[in-house]
């Protein structure tokens, strides 16, 4: 007799077997302190491994190489997390944001050009934020001026994660300087090999340099690189920002709740603190919240697929994940004591819960600031989720 539950358990068993055979033993140690080129090679290799198993882009439509039922995707992410698999960092923007944009608003030609290429390793970066357009993203100043069958782009992008390695860029630029600010923005696919692009890494608070500035001087983008209508880019951007939530949050929540929490318990055990009721009380409180977070993320993807997600649901999950991550890594730092401060590097290819507690703690601001700060999220939740009045202009 078969049932959905049994079918899912069989799938779980097959993912477990795959993980045992394929997750490289000791990859964290091997990935710590390595040069960029080695990190990139490792990421490319791991992406190919996942792709061969059908696990790289399970969320894509079947015709493009995905088509895994949602319930199986939940199991997949849960098992990858439980087996402490490396994360797909390099391909992240490509398989989530770029794919979501192309599938929602791209032309057939754009999809055919890029989706198979992404499966072959094409990488992407998001060029949204600017020095004067952070929380107020719609205030962006980078311009794209129409010139025959192309646009000429000038401006500066900031916080472009992975721009040094990226082949392509999801670019927001102003095409109508006279329109109200959200109505004058267009969305482009920008080839990062185009002349006039200068990428400079910015060192973040952790000491890593995956964030970049992108300087754009008279960069030509063919008109065929426009996504959606001219001046309709703000709407398209909402689609890609949406993709940053749902499944990506699910994956991160599973990691935090699986290996992340296990390391926290192990850290307490190493310090002989599992008999200290003050410590175990906080552990139990965190485990409770992690359990809820995982449930909230599953609920979000299920409602999203059913078209029933509430207007503030994604913000609630993002805010809750990021602040829980911060509290958990703070606690890990406190528990690990001075030794947490002697861990000078965290492994590449890991998530935001690498077990290098102090670095993870500092790194947690990468979740409470980008993608809409916690303050912006609270305002969105109150206005869209609860219907409270907007601030008078």
């Amino acid at each position, binding site marked *: 007799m078969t*049932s*959905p*539950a049994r079918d*899912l*358990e069989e799938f779980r068993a097959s993912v477990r077997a795959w993980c045992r055979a394929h997750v490289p033993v000791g990859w964290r140690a091997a990935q710590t302190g390595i040069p960029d080129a080695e990190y990139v090679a490792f990421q490319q290799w791991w992406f190919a491994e996942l792709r061969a198993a059908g696990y790289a882009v399970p969320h894509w439509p079947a015709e493009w190489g995905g088509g895994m039922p949602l319930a199986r995707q939940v199991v997949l992410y849960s098992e990858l997390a439980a087996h402490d698999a490396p994360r797909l960092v390099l391909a992240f923007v490509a398989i989530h944001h770029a794919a979501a944009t192309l599938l929602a608003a791209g032309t057939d030609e754009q999809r055919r050009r890029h989706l198979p290429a992404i499966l072959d390793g094409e990488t992407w970066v998001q060029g949204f934020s600017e020095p004067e357009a952070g929380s107020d993203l719609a205030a962006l100043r980078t311009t794209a001026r129409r010139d025959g069958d192309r646009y000429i782009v000038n401006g500066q992008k900031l916080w472009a994660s992975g721009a040094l390695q990226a082949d392509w860029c999801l670019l927001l630029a102003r095409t109508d300087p006279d329109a109200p600010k959200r109505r004058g923005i267009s969305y482009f696919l920008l080839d990062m090999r185009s002349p006039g692009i200068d990428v400079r890494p910015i060192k973040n608070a952790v000491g890593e340099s995956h964030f970049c500035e992108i300087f754009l001087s008279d960069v030509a983008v063919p008109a065929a690189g426009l996504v959606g209508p001219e001046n309709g880019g703000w709407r398209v951007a909402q689609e890609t920002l949406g993709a940053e939530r749902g499944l990506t949050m699910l994956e991160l929540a599973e990691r935090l709740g699986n290996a992340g929490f296990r390391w926290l*318990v192990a850290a*307490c*055990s190493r310090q002989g603190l*599992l008999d200290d*009721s003050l410590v*175990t*009380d906080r*552990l*139990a*409180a965190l*485990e*409770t*919240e992690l*359990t*809820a*977070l995982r*449930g*909230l993320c599953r*609920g979000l993807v299920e409602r999203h697929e059913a078209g029933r997600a509430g207007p*503030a649901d994604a913000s*609630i999950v993002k*805010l*809750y994940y990021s602040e829980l991550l911060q509290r958990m890594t703070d606690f890990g730092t406190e528990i690990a004591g001075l030794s947490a401060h002697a861990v000078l590097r965290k492994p590449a290819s890991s998530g935001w819960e690498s077990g290098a507690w102090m670095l993870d703690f500092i790194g947690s601001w990468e979740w409470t600031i980008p993608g809409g700060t916690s*303050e912006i*999220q*609270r*305002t969105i*939740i*109150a*206005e869209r*989720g*609860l*219907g*409270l*009045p*907007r*601030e*008078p202009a």
Partner: protein
Amino acid sequence: MNAAPRQLGDETSPEDLAEARAELRAIARGLLGKTRVPAAPGWGLMASSGWLGLEVPPALDGAGATFAEVAVIAEELGRAVARGSYLGSAVLGVGTLRELARHPATDDLLRRTAAGDAVPAAVLVPGGSAGGRHGGGVPFWLARTADGLRLNGQAVFVPDAAEATTLLVLARAVDDGAPVIVELDPQAAGIVIEPQPVLDETRRLAMVRAEGAEIATESVRRFAGDPRATVRRLLDRAAVAVACDSLGLSEAMLDATVGYARVREQFGRPVGSFQAVKHACADMLIRVRVARELVAAAVTALAGDPAGIGTVDLSPADVSTAASMAKAYACEAAVEVAGKAMQLHGGIGYTWESGIHLYLKRAALNRSLFGAPAAHRRRLAERYK
């Protein structure tokens, strides 16, 4: 009009179940919302609505539903900060009776409870808060004397004991010390019941003491399954039912606060347009959503999965884990949410008239009933070693 919930068969689909629960919730909210807070639904109305016999089998004139339906009513009663003996009787009493080995007297009591003619109350822990420790131990014990079977022991802060027509007392059996249930007439000689007034005027708690009360052998009832596992399950049910209550009252406080912040004006604009107020409301919503998630998981774990849509059956330990998470979080969150509601209502929120104090007091009482948050987290932490 008979608003009793429909009966659910084995072949019920998940969609039908969800729809039936939504219907039950809508009816309950409608009925309870008709009066001022605290709602005081009559016992006859509760019986005719089918709420008292939700878990009573259809053969005994009940609805044959599950704990998931009881949880709906518990949440709605919390939302209305309703008075009444639902927790002691329909949740704990019926739950206890359903775990006993079949007996004509038990069947009769279940039938009369569903009809509203009998009000059982279960006495399961020595203190309502289980003395700070979850479980806490068996509060009564049986002894055989020359004159027959005698009952001794005491329990304090027992929900709805003073209003009960029958007490279901957890006691140690004479022969093997196993936990059993003694069915008691509250008027019987040697039984003392003293109401214990608390600041939360919506709940009735009482001290129950047995001083060598004479017990007929046929009043002692064995559990159908493993006694210790059953007691644990009953306490998990109690904890989750209280968590449902806290979730419901949290939702009511969030709704009331948002409604007030939209219309109350200061400095020439609604106070809800100020970011400080907005962000506080957003935090309340997150607390409520997280609590709802944990409570839903615990209710599903306890009620089972009749439609078979979930993954695999949970072990008793997993059920207890889900129960402890829900109880610890939802009951702590409710105190914070009700407190924030009082704060955001400003001066009016601190008045007796506003009624917000009712929610805050009930939330704080709930937090201590059937295991304080720290006690539940201690139980969770036992799994880390």
